[in-house]
């Protein structure tokens, strides 16, 4: 029978088999969305949309969920996850805001400014940065950066000034955002470099011929032309930042606290929690029904955000299509 399978197949059978394989992949993804939504439904049903808003202390609510494991009453499902949503938005927006200029400048450096020897070293090095596992970033963060910030950057006076509200231990917003930026920048650099390299040389040479220096030539011509690529890179980087769970869980301080910008410099050191890091924090309690639907609701929100990001990226790129260059 093996021999019969090894003979060339008729085209029709081959097409159906390959089509079935592709259909399987599509079905798995649809199943993922459906399963997560079904498991998340109880929280949504009990809370409506108010679970995204502020309200009671989140930690007490989760403790309550963990304590009511069999047949939880409706009150156990009460959830006000605003600190998590805020934490996710804060870390993602700050990290992407830092990563975009850093990656664009680095890409310009790699493609335009670096001498050949430096470029030969820089490219594999930055590719390495992109493939370091997030647990190693988290390890360096928690063993090196957090103690450094906790012992040498945060002053005793700053600690005392918020001592009745929250404890500053070094693990918090600043370390999280810095490491997150380092994580997502290489992803953006890869895409932006590729796009910069595919801008026709004649465009840039034309600008130089008109009297612009090379840097201005890049800015005037190439950067405008690669705007779709920058958008695509930003979307990719944002999706990565949204979904980062392990590294953030290790360095963010593990308190469902919403850092307040009005606190000044201390704002950077306040602990926080994001949706993804909360799932990692509480995943052991997933057998308690109330907590399970809560965690799946977080997952559904993350899934939904990733989907919306793709759609937004697509929509933003539509009017930029006339700038698309063919490499």
């Amino acid at each position, binding site marked *: 029978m093996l021999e019969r399978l090894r003979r060339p197949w008729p085209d029709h059978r081959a097409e159906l088999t390959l089509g079935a394989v*592709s259909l399987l992949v599509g079905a798995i993804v649809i*199943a993922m969305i459906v399963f*997560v939504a079904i498991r998340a439904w109880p929280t949504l049903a009990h809370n409506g949309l108010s679970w995204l808003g502020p309200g009671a202390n989140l930690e007490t609510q989760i403790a309550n969920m963990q304590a009511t494991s069999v047949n939880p009453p409706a009150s156990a499902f009460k959830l006000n996850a605003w600190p998590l949503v805020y934490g996710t938005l804060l870390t993602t927006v700050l990290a992407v805001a830092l990563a975009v200029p850093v990656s664009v400048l680095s890409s310009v450096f790699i493609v335009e400014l670096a001498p050949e020897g430096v470029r030969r070293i820089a490219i594999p090095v930055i590719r390495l940065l992109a493939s370091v596992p997030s647990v190693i970033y988290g390890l360096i963060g928690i063993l090196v950066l957090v103690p450094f910030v906790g012992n040498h950057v945060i002053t005793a006076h700053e600690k005392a000034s918020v001592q009745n509200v929250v404890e500053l231990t070094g693990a918090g917003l600043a370390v999280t955002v810095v490491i997150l930026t380092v994580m997502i920048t290489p992803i953006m650099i890869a895409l932006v470099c590729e796009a*910069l390299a595919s801008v026709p040389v004649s465009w840039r040479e034309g600008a130089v011929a008109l009297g612009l220096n*090379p840097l201005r030539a890049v800015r005037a011509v190439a950067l405008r032309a690669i705007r779709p690529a920058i958008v695509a890179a930003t979307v990719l980087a944002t999706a990565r930042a949204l979904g980062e769970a392990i590294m953030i869980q*290790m360095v963010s301080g593990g308190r469902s606290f919403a850092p307040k910008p009005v606190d000044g410099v201390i704002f950077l050191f306040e602990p926080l929690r994001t949706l993804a890091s909360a799932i990692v924090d509480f995943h052991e309690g997933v057998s308690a029904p109330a907590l399970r639907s809560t965690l799946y609701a977080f997952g559904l929100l993350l899934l939904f955000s990733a989907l919306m990001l793709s759609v937004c990226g697509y929509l933003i790129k539509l009017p930029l299509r006339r700038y698309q260059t063919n490499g």
Partner: protein
Amino acid sequence: MSVLASDVRPLGASGTGPAQDGHGRRSSPWSWRWSDRFVLVVAWATGIGLCLIAAAIVVYMGVRGVEYLRPGLLFSHPQASTSQAGSGGFLDPLLGTLLLTVIGITLALPLAVGCALWITEYGRPGWLARVVESSIEIVAGTPDIVIALFGLAVFQLSLFAPLSFTAQGGGVYGRSFIIAGAMLSLIALPPLYAATRDGLQAVPTHMREAAFALGKTKIATIRRVLLPSVRSNVATGVTLGVSRIIGDTAIVLLLLGETLRIDTEGSIPGLNLLRATGSTLTTYVYSNSPAGEGAAPQKAYAAAFVLLVFVLGLNLIVTRIGRAHASTGLSGAGGGIV
């Protein structure tokens, strides 16, 4: 074509930088405005800065790894102990990583290559092709923690009880090597698919037409002409997929049962390993760090060093494949970054 294959020169003949411009002193930065000079300095600073950060990470992990890694650790089983001296090595996590990689790639490779082939060569009906492409994009953008939650939701159904084990009270445990491997194959799928699809799209049409002219059917063309020519793309894709699987922590944390040693389940050899629970290097590092349940940073450093060595090796392979591919003169289809 990716500029990050090291020996592609993106600027053609016009030189690489202002100071080395072949046309003379006209574009020396000393003649620029202050704002431009400032931007130049900042661009250099960010580029060199990122390289320094990468170097610092590698050097620091290297120093710590050499400090704490002894060859005995690679070959001894971990023990439950409260002191670092007695807690053994990380042979089981190492084997766990290897086993999961094998399972993940074995499951992802046929799926990814099949999808890529179908989308580029057939692709009818059109709406289905769009659905499949979008679903792979969705998987690529999904956080791995959500994929882990999905795995938990699916594999704790009693339908999948044979894949893990059932506790005395009737609850399906839902965590084992095969389950974690299946979910890890989902995250290895997008890079594999993208690399294969790019390779297939870059094969010139005249090769296909020549095969048709010789009387070969489509499937024979695929088998004998297309697949061999995208071998290096598939290799790049596999390497990228492997590096994603090796580096993943969230899925393994939720879906592998987190036992220190590989705990086999059942009595059929081979199957009992697939149903086993265990750990990988990543969860071992996580558990031993101040974020997990142990507090053994020395072991964490040692295991993290081994992990980094694996990742570095995989990177080298990708670079090597990219270089070999570019030097054979085939157009397009280089390996991209992750």
